[in-house]
């Protein structure tokens, strides 16, 4: 699936949750199921700075596609990482670097976070883009 198709799928699924508690529940559930099975990701060199909670990100190329791994000590952030990686993981790095990211705004995720959370979300997206750019070409 393309990055856009995945985003449209997420928008449809999240729109089925009418109120914000349902959406938070969905994010928390996603967060519970997401995350590294062990602490192998939780290393200083993978840490993204500029987030209120701890976020770790690493990536490698496999068969021409970018494989992303991420984790956080916050359940809600893990839920957001689950969605972001669903969109960006296992895609050509050039696409990850440049693709339009709109699902966060359409489902109102960014606007419903506190300013520091929203800024942290932006930092994570930028880190993913940067990683993709480094693996391009």
């Amino acid at each position, binding site marked *: 699936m393309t990055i856009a198709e995945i985003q449209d799928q997420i928008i449809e699924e999240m729109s089925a949750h009418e109120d*914000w*508690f349902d959406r*938070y*529940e969905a994010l*928390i559930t996603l967060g519970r199921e997401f995350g590294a099975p062990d602490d192998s990701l939780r290393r200083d060199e993978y840490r993204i700075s500029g987030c*209120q*909670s*701890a976020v770790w990100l690493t990536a490698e190329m496999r068969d021409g596609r970018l494989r992303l791994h991420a984790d956080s*000590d*916050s*359940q*809600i952030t893990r839920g957001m990482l689950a969605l972001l990686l669903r969109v960006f993981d296992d895609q050509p790095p050039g696409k990850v670097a440049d693709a339009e990211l709109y699902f966060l705004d359409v489902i109102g995720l960014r606007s419903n*976070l*506190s300013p520091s*959370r929203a800024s942290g979300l932006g930092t994570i997206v930028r880190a993913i883009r940067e990683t993709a750019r480094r693996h391009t070409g």
Partner: protein
Amino acid sequence: MVTSVTLESRREADLPLRFEAGTPNYPAAVSLAEAIRYLQRIGMQRIREHENTLHEYMREQLVNVGGLTVYGSAPEHSGSVAFNLDGIQPYDAGMIMDRMGVAVRTGTHCAEPLMRHFGINGCIRASLALYNDTDDIDRLAEAVRKAQSMLG
């Protein structure tokens, strides 16, 4: 304050005036005076008693909720209570509580050495003031329970 300005440059005034605005913050000065009069009309002793009563009530309610750790064991307290919900990240808890209409502070509270002393990465802090009442604390307890059920 400046002494002169052109399109290309400016010359600032000498110290200390260079760090002063041209127009002093007189609305704040007037508001501060009125705020002080307001507190004096109510009476600082009355405020202190109200806050202390609420503080005790808040501690009791938090103990009733359970599944949390309150920090600070000094014999005299006032104002605020710092705590963590067992197994739940304080930022996550704060987000749910915010949705429940309860505003608390989360994080390191600009006091990292104190967090280190307690061996934690951050915590939740509920602060009281003269305009709070027991309803607010009941809502706090309800919000804590909601956060525990969603995140625990």
